[in-house]
């Protein structure tokens, strides 16, 4: 029996939503420049995503880092898979790779 409710919550969030962004603040009011940058990129690509504010829950803030073995936030997940943090998302956006990955995974991109 598993005794890690945070991990279970993360697993179900990234399973039930195609694109999930763990971030500081909300998509409308990001509380950190790195989170804001990823929100802006996703908005630019016209991607619908679920933003989850880790600042309201310290166990989630730590839990997401443990889950991905990644020490920083934001963290972007597409179809259950960790894509990267701010630097990687930004680099992938600049090269066009992010749009390719999203399309390849069947995520709808807006105009």
């Amino acid at each position, binding site marked *: 029996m598993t005794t890690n409710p945070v991990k279970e919550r993360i697993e179900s969030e990234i399973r039930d939503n195609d694109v999930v962004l763990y971030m500081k603040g909300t998509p409308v009011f990001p509380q950190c420049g*790195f989170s804001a940058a990823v929100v802006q990129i996703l908005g630019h690509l016209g991607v619908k995503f679920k933003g989850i504010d880790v600042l309201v829950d310290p166990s989630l803030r730590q839990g997401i*880092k443990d889950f991905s*073995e*990644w*020490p*920083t*936030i934001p963290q972007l997940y597409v179809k259950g898979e*960790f*894509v*990267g*943090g*701010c*630097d*990687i998302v930004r*680099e*992938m956006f600049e090269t066009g790779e992010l749009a390719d990955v999203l399309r390849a995974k069947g995520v709808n991109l807006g105009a």
Partner: protein
Amino acid sequence: MPMDIREIERLIKEGLPDAVVRIEDLRGDGDHYAAYVESAEFAGKSRIQQHQMVYKALSGRMGGALHALALRTSAPQGS
């Protein structure tokens, strides 16, 4: 507590001895850095794995003492 550029470079090179490391203090405040790291050990690894290797070299300081380190990694051309 902010970290010194030389300390960051030392830790990265300890974990990745062949690494070419270039670090910039983005705001001159000793708290927001950008690092470019090139190492043959990155060859064949995904970006996530490459960054994880650098974070591992920084042994837990990333997200703690080291608040902001924008990271770019690559393997040397031809490796």
